[in-house]
């Protein structure tokens, strides 16, 4: 165990996985000499050389598109998108090829491609540095998506992604990159995709969150009179339905917290799951506390946009009223 920040845990995962499998290749803008704008890839160039830690031209679709070809040549590319909003140019490759190529070969050929990117707001950055686009990725067939909420999971989920034969998108909440620190297992550490984490046990209401919103949900739970269970989804796709249904089966109430814009966001999928499979358990409406259907604001207003513990508490009070 070592105490690490989330970005240090990401770097640790890359070091361990590159050491473990010489087919792992890290590529992206400024990942080499500079070690990444968040230092997630620091030290990889010196340790593994320019063939396995590649500074690419400034072209996201080119990065992901060539990664498809690299996978065909036997590599396991780990592509960094410098910010989530700059991953949009690669959606075309992701939807048309990354999520389809294994299927297109009747399951014969694997495409073990990992795409990792910082995500979300709270860092007072200029426009288009604070989006939360996970819904685009989750809706795409053939793609798996995980979002860690702490350093240990950041390492374990990234390791699972790199070892997975399937394409996985890992979105790292950039607001958590440098704090808080957490205890991270040294060496091999894998957190399997598809398993949620019960961040806090409780009986009266289930707060469902992922990424940076887990801490917000935990804070709300802390301030709450009633007993709230907090579930950290971790793996959006595949989704740990059992964990969610078990908790809501127990509490009968659910509040979903999502930073992304509300409409057709991932929270809707969770609510839909509950409306289908937990309807008899539900004693109250399923509420979503989310960002707004408006672009992420200029950062002086970001705290008004990002769900706060206060907004979560409001929703919880509402569902507890039933």
């Amino acid at each position, binding site marked *: 165990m070592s105490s690490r920040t989330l970005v240090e845990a990401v770097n640790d995962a890359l070091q361990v996985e590159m050491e473990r499998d010489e087919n792992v*290749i890290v590529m992206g803008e400024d990942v080499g000499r500079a070690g990444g704008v968040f230092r997630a890839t620091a030290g990889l160039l010196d340790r593994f050389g320019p*063939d396995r830690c590649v500074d*690419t*031209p400034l*072209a996201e*679709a*080119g990065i*992901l*598109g*060539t*990664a*498809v*070809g*690299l*996978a*065909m*040549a*036997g*590599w396991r590319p780990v592509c960094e998108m410098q910010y989530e909003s700059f991953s949009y*140019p690669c959606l*075309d*490759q992701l939807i*048309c*090829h990354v*999520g389809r*190529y*294994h*299927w*297109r*070969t*009747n*399951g*014969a*050929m*694997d495409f073990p491609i990992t795409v990792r990117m910082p995500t979300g707001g709270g860092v007072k950055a200029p426009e288009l540095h604070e989006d939360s686009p996970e819904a685009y990725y989750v809706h795409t*067939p*053939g793609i*798996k998506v995980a979002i860690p909420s702490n350093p240990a999971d950041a390492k374990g989920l990234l390791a699972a992604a790199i070892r*997975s*034969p*399937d394409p996985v998108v890992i979105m790292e909440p950039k607001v958590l990159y440098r704090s808080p620190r957490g205890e991270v297992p040294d060496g091999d550490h894998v957190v399997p995709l598809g398993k949620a984490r019960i961040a806090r046990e409780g009986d009266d209401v289930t707060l469902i969150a992922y990424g940076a919103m887990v801490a917000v949900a935990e804070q709300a739970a802390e301030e709450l009179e009633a007993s709230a269970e907090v579930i950290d989804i971790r793996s959006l796709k595949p989704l740990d339905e059992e964990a969610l249904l078990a908790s809501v089966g127990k509490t009968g109430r659910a509040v979903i917290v999502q930073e992304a814009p509300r409409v057709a966001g991932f929270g809707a999928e969770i609510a839909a799951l509950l409306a289908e499979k937990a309807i008899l358990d539900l004693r109250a409406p399923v509420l979503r506390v989310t960002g707004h259907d408006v672009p992420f604001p200029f950062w002086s207003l970001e705290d008004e946009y990002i769900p706060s513990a206060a907004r979560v508490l409001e929703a919880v009070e509402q569902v507890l009223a039933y």
Partner: protein
Amino acid sequence: MIGDGEALPDGEVEGLTEQDLLELYRALVLLRTYDERSVVYHSQGRIGTYAIFWGHEAMQAGAVLALEPEDWVFPSYRESAIGLLRGMPPETVLSWWRGHPAGWWDPRTYGVASIAVPIATHVPHAVGFAWGKRLRGESACAIAFFGDGATSEGAFHEGANFAAVMSAPVILLCNNNGWAISTPVSKQTKAEALVDKAVGYGMPGVRVDGGDVLAVYEATREAAVRARAGDGPTFIEAVTYRCAPHATADDPSAYIDAERVEAERQNECVGRFERYLRRLGLLGDELASQIAGEAKEALRAGIAAAESLPPPDPGLVTRNAYVE
């Protein structure tokens, strides 16, 4: 411009044996037969919409036969049957056009990637593959086929630039057939020639007569030599002309120049090479009809095999998105 659309003979290519020349001819005839039969099969409702490549056989065969078996081919829908030149059975390609999962294949089996439907998006795949092979110290290179219209897409640009920067052993073969569906190349670019784009990527560019199989062969072979020598990618503009509709669903009468089409059909690439071989005395009526017969038989067997496949397993609609 290597090759010469007018004068014949097309001139010899160093190192090509008579067997090689006949092999090229067999490839041309096989592709031509595949294409012409497919149009018939479509009219008979035996395959779905089909992208015709009549007149592009020399461009396809000349390039692929100039490569080594270890080299990978990245086709667009316009080169759907190019796997035939790598031993892929016709029923596989016919199944693709029949919308049957037997039309999927494992790219490793033939060194042929899946047919790319979205324009230009496979260019970076070929580049990444070639780059990846080079990183492994292997000598394989890759070739990507795409059209004139594809050069307008960002995917082409990003792929070409990566190719040059990574000095990937890849050949970017642009089939300039003058049209992107109804859009003439003059509305696609203001460049005098598509090969001019090579300059901006800092890679060598070659312009060849895509109807001259030997010219395409030679240009491709030279590009492959450069690639294997570590000198990076080459952009080849193969000038052809689309003498047929874009696809069976398309009616070009609204936009095409019928006279030009007629003229191009007169000078079509298979007959042109056949006349050349006959002049060289390498091909006579007997051998010609034997080769034609083999190709026809291959297609007859191919469509029969495709049609005798059991209907696909409905369970497939929920499978194969993920390994795990």
